[in-house]
């Protein structure tokens, strides 16, 4: 199969997946016990108010009709209006998405760097202190809740040492007006170096907290796969040809160890998104995750539904991308 055909097939396969996720979200939010209307107005509202709201939200129709309405409006990109602010949910999400992308990208890059280099070195010095340390680190960080790590960092670096700001994305005193919503990019475009430094200082703590938690998984996978690769014949052959140890490690063993990791990367990114919800809440980071939590507090069901649909979309798009990258790196996948 050519790469082009593979990409097309993969995208077509994503359609049933997205449909199932949409149906799942619909099922959870509409059919499970719990009435969104009662949740919004409270149990003591007069009957006509309840009926009117039910009609507005299209909840008086039959369940299949509601489902058709819902899928059609999702296809049109209409996520509905927030009952709290009366603004389109999509607009509100667009404002918040850059913050989440900035945070998760920082965390992801950090996790990959820690995982790759520590993992490779640990594999080279198997069962020595660096390796034992890596294993300990992986086991312990797996057990640490990201919000707890965040709180401890806030306490230490924010309150006691006063090195970094405790919460938020940028100091309000700078009265920074974003262009794209990516503060790091915006401040570079504007040439506002004070803002760049400030935004970066705000990003460090949430980014590191999330990155550390995710890195343990990479570390573990890279280490185990590299150990496996180092025992293979092609590595021994490379060593026998007199190639330097580091070059064999990074050029031969690690390169091949990373291929199977790419396959499971999609699942790790899903984990990253879940972690982002907790991290954003801890650091009052104005992203999609803290938006979701805030909307749940006010029982704003259209907004909750819209946010989760966007999360589903992100998951599907990421899994397509990962598969395509995988097919590029490893031609066997295509057959």
């Amino acid at each position: 199969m050519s790469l082009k055909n593979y990409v097309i097939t993969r995208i077509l396969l994503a359609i049933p997946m997205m449909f199932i996720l949409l149906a799942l979200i619909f099922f959870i939010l509409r059919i499970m016990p719990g009435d969104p209307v009662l949740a919004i107005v409270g149990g003591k509202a007069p009957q006509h108010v309840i009926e009117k709201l039910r009609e507005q939200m299209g909840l008086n129709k039959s369940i299949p009709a509601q489902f058709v309405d819902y899928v059609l409006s999702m296809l049109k990109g209409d996520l509905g209006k927030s009952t709290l602010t009366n603004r389109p949910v999509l607009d509100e999400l667009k404002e918040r998405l850059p913050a989440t992308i900035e945070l998760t990208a920082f965390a992801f890059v950090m996790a990959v760097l820690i995982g790759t280099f520590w993992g490779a070195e640990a594999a080279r010095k198997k069962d020595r202190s660096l390796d034992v340390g890596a294993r300990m680190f992986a086991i312990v960080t797996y057990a640490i809740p990201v919000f707890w790590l965040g709180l401890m960092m806030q306490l230490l670096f924010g309150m006691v040492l006063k090195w970094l700001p405790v919460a938020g994305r940028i100091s309000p005193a700078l009265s920074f007006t974003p262009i794209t919503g990516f503060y790091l990019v915006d401040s570079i475009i504007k040439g506002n170096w004070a803002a760049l430094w400030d935004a970066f200082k705000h990003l460090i703590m949430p980014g590191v907290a999330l990155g550390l938690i995710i890195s343990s998984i990479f570390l573990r996978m890279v280490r185990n796969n590299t150990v496996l690769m180092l025992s293979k014949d092609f590595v021994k052959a490379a060593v026998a040809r007199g190639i330097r140890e580091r070059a064999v490690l990074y050029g031969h063993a690690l390169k091949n160890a990373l291929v199977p990791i790419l396959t499971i990367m999609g699942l790790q990114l899903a984990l990253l998104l879940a972690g982002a919800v907790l991290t954003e809440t801890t650091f009052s980071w104005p992203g999609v995750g803290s938006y979701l939590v805030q909307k749940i507090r006010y029982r704003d069901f259209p907004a909750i539904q819209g946010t989760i649909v966007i999360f589903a979309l992100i998951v599907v798009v990421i899994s397509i991308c990962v598969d395509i990258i995988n097919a590029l790196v490893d031609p066997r996948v295509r057959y």
Partner: protein
Amino acid sequence: MKAVTSKYLSHRITRKIFKSSTGIVTFIGAAILVFFLFLAVFSPQIAPHNPTERVSRPLQAPNSEFLFGTDNLGRDILSRVIYGARIALTIAFLAVVIAAAIGIPLGLISGYIGGVFDRILTLIMDAIYSFPGLILAIAIAAVLGPGIVNIALSIAVVYAPTYFRVIRNQVAGIKDELYVEAARALGARSPSILLRYILPNVLPSVIVVLSMNLADAIMTEAGLSFLGLGIAPPTPDWGYDLSSGQRFVLSKAWWAILFPGISIITTVLGFSMFSEGLNEYLNPTIRERR
């Protein structure tokens, strides 16, 4: 004879445990679990104070009377941490049991029947599996509202696909084995084939998944209650006690953050160390996926 065998076995297991590092890890994990189970069961006897009552001035640093200090409402943090083990373990066990109760039968039937039914169910389970677990649990918990069973249910939905996958794949693999064929030829009906011939053969692989999921379930429960979606206050809960963390940060009340967090970390560590060891013993050939 039997006594001799079991004595020999137990001796061999003890030797095995202390010989390898995996054995020590498993042992430490098990010890942590027993410790927290003990705390959970006997919390009224162990806790020095009532966990939901104001017993002192708010935000007192740890001292001889309140070993872990007091929280913003003047409640004893040590007592809350001890009682917190109850909620964490109850919800985690309940969630895992529900997840297994959904996933195992569906996996059995799906793998056995095959065909379109199997395809569709697999697609649905894969979709749930690919979705960020915590976000799915958040959505369900937001609809169901607080309460032990509701939280357990929200977490269970996230983990049910794991059981489904493990069971389904194994059933699909062994349903054409000779002993199953033989049972069928002798006139055994499908339900009895499933329950008496197939289930006992696929169940052992679930045990490891079960103990691994317990660690994840505790994490997810802590996350949910941190976000205010867990147990209704004032019930002591580790995650919930950290949800007013920002306030503790601003007043530099490190003890109010440190101790509930340490409890979560140790419990999760205990479960994951234990399950890792269990994995090595039960399925030495199956490499971990994480």
